[in-house]
Every structure is written in C-alpha cells, then in structure tokens.
C-alpha cells in the first residue's frame, strides 16, 4: 500500500518547499546586500563601479540563471505561503473569545503571512522602481568623468559618440551597447521621503519575518539537534537584525547624502 501523495499535496511537503525556498532567498539576500554595499561609495568612482556592477548582473549568464531561480523561489514561496495560510485559517473556523497567544509563542511566528505579504508588495514596488526602469524605462546613460563621452558596457569611453536606442554611434556606425546609469536612478529615487520610509518599513517586516523564519526553516527540514539549535537560533537572530538593517540604511544614507 502506498500513502505517498506527490510533491505538493501534504502539509509537510509544502513546508519543505517553504523552508527550501526561504533558505535560498536568505542566500540571495546575502549576495544582494554585498552588491548593494557599493552604493555607499561616493563620487564618480562609486557611480561607475555600481553601473559596471549592474552591467555584470544583467549580462552574466550564471547570474541570469540565478536570477531566474530567485524569481521562481519568490513566486513559489509566496504561493505556497498563501496556500499554507489558507489551510491554517481553515483548521480553526471558530476562534477563541479570549486568547493569550503571547504566552506561548513569538509574534513573528504567528504573523508570517502578513509579514510576507508586506515583503511581496515591497518586492513588486522595488522591481518597478529599479529593475523595470533599468530594463524597459527611459534611463540616463553613463558618461566619462568629464561628461563629454558616453561609455560602452565594458567601460570604454567613446569620444564624439552619440547614443541612440541604447547604443553608441560613432560617425553613424554602431560601436556597442551604452552603459546605463542605474546609479542616478537610485539616487533620484531616494530623494523621495515616502519611498525611503516604505523601504525602511519593508526591511523591518523582513527582519521580523526572518526572526522566526530562519530557525523555522531548519525545523521544517527536520534539522533539530540540541547541539546545533543554539547556534542556529543565534545566527538567525543576528541575520534577521543585521541584514535588513544594512539594507534599510542604504536609502536612508542616500536620502541624507
């Protein structure tokens, strides 16, 4: 007799996927943060560095592959999370008149769906702000430091070059793809205090999501051992505080600079 029910059918399997995609997204966040640290560099050197990084992130095939896995993970994690949240609600159709859940569990653990939804809204806004504008919007282009020659994607300045349809033309001849100036879009974006506030709020939600999520993922995958539990908990708390805090610091820093 077989009781197996496929890869999404049981609650426990849904939780394996939740944990697996969640941990992958934690890895992604680490890399994303490392890249964003370049935004703390000032002056033309910082601008150039960041825009070269943006070219690398959008053209390198390995990064492209990883980015598709990331999109899939987010979508899968969100849909799976919603299915789990619906099942959670269904399991107790009549709630208690008087309940003291704070006596036995942390707030984050009981509000993962709400926190996740805030993060999802944030991701959509964030993608529109930068990813969409960078790919499809009308972006400024990167010039050399003197401001008189456009740069190609590999960083070479084309004196006398003209930009048309995203490419640099010299004497009517297409000499390559122009480097877009994402840095200026970011700087301009974060002059808006409402946007800065929203980014900070979303990072607070992310922090609370991970205060529970980090260690929870290990438990979901069956990794619970008295020897390792304390370290998982400590690393989880540290990650949940430090990573969103630095992420949040970037728009705040740029707003005041």
């Amino acid at each position, binding site marked *: *007799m*077989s009781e197996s029910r496929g890869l999404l059918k049981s*609650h426990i399997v849904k939780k394996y996927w939740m944990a697996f995609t969640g941990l992958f997204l934690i890895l992604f966040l680490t890399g994303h943060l490392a890249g964003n640290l370049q935004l703390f560099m000032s002056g033309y050197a910082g601008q150039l560095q960041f825009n070269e990084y943006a070219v690398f992130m959008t053209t390198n095939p390995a990064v492209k592959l990883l980015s598709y896995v990331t999109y899939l993970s987010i979508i899968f994690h969100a849909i799976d999370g919603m299915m789990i949240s619906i099942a959670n609600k269904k399991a107790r159709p009549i709630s208690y008149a008087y309940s003291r859940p704070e006596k036995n569990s942390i707030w984050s653990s009981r509000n993962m769906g709400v926190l996740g939804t805030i993060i999802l809204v944030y991701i959509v806004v964030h993608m529109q702000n930068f990813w969409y504008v960078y790919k499809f919007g009308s972006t400024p282009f990167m010039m050399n430091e003197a401001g008189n020659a456009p740069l190609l994607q590999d960083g070479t300045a084309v004196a006398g070059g003209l930009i048309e349809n995203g490419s640099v033309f010299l004497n009517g001849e297409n000499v390559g793809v122009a480097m877009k100036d994402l840095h200026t879009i970011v700087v301009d974006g974060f002059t808006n205090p409402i946007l800065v506030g929203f980014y900070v709020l979303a990072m607070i939600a992310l922090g609370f999501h991970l205060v529970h999520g980090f260690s929870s993922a290990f438990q979901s995958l069956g990794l619970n051992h008295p020897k390792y539990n304390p370290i998982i908990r400590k690393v989880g708390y540290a990650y949940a505080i430090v990573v969103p805090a630095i992420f949040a610091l970037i728009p705040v820093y740029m707003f005041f600079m």
Partner: protein
Amino acid sequence: MAAEKGMNITLKVWRQKNGQSKGALETYQINDVSPDSSFLEMMDALNDQIIMKDGSPVVFDHDCREGICGSCSMYINGQPHGPARLVTTCQLHMREFKDGETIYVEPFRAKAFPVIKDLVVDRSALDRIQHAGGYISVNTSGNTQDANAIPIEKEKADKAFDAATCIGCGACVAACKNASASLFMSAKISQYALLPQGQVEAKNRVLAMVKQAEEEGFGPCSNTGACEIECPKGISLENIARMNREYLSASLTSK
C-alpha cells in the same frame, strides 16, 4: 480554613446546547473558592450552585483527575489547561489565579474537534490518527518475544519513553494558531521510530498518520512552538523535526 482565604471568582463559561446550536459565553459568580481546590473542583462547585438554582450544569470532560487520561480539555484564560506549565486542568489549582479575577473557560477550538456540548469536544480525530499507523504488529499467539531481548541504546529508549508520555489531551492542537496536531502525531510516530520494533512499519506509519491528520482537518505546522510550551507532558519539538525527517525519507522512497 477555606472560609478565611476563600476567593471570589467571576467565570465566563462557554455554553452551547449541542453541535448544531450557536453557543455563547455566560457569566457566573462563584464565591469562597479555596485556593487549594483544583480547577475541576471549582467547576464542580459551580455546577452545584447552578443545580441548586434549577439550571443545567456545565458539561465538561474529566476522568482520572490526576493528569494521565488527558480528557479534561478546557481553554482557560486564553491558554489550554490554564496558565500553569506542565499540568492538565485537573492538576491546576485555584491559587494560580487572583482573588476577584475573571476567568474565561472555553472548549478547545479546532475544525477537527467539534463541540458536543458546552466544554466537551469530540477528540476522536486523534484516535483515528493513532489507528492509521500508531501501532506495531506483534505476534501474540503464545510465543511472544521478550521485548527486552533486543538491546536498545539508553538515550533512545529514554527519548522513546518521553514521547510515549503523550496523553492525547489535544492541548497542542488547542494552543496552535493552526490547530495543528503535529506535536501529538510526532510523539506517536517518535515513540516507535526510535525503537527497533517500530522499524518494520515505520514508512507507512508516518505517511498514513500524516495523511489522516490532514483529512481530519488539522492545520499545517508553522513551528511557533506554542504546543511544546502548553503540552502538559513537555513533549519536545524535536519530535516534530523527527517526524519531518521520517516523512521526507518515507515519501522519497515509497512507491
């Protein structure tokens, strides 16, 4: 003795005629309660008081009154079995409360635990989970093997014993925001998974019990840990992780 230290308590008790009717909280005043009485003794006194006034007594489950049968399910002041740790309602004493306090008493709430009357819920869903796989098949035809003939690591035997102390009270379900039966199930799975005698049926056990729990309408586990804190027997979350491991290997290798 009781007279000088008697407590005055306001109770808000869930009253519901039957599974079809809509219930509501009702307020009762009970005075001169001994702090040393158990919660169930206080409920008995309340019922005496109600009967004296020709009312219908509050129906609640109880049997052993010593914390071993698991029947005394009540959600007291927002927590299953009340505010004290590692006790059932029958082991809860009135000294845990303050004189003049208002105490809410509700049935355990879960889709899988329909209310029968007042505070009594039908917890047979837990029995059906157990029936789905929480057993080992042993030949009892007269030449039964001595269980002690098989050497078992002390630490594993202890953990299996700890898991086996689950009394099936359902407090884990009542405490869980998802009304998940994971702690109960994982205890019942672990008590066998840890022992050699449990290996024969191990794969099917975990698959069948998990499936049954879902069919009964218990929710998924969010690892909030509320169950472990509220469990009167201190069943550890380690058991849920073990169940998750067992389930993973069973689903990867089953046909």
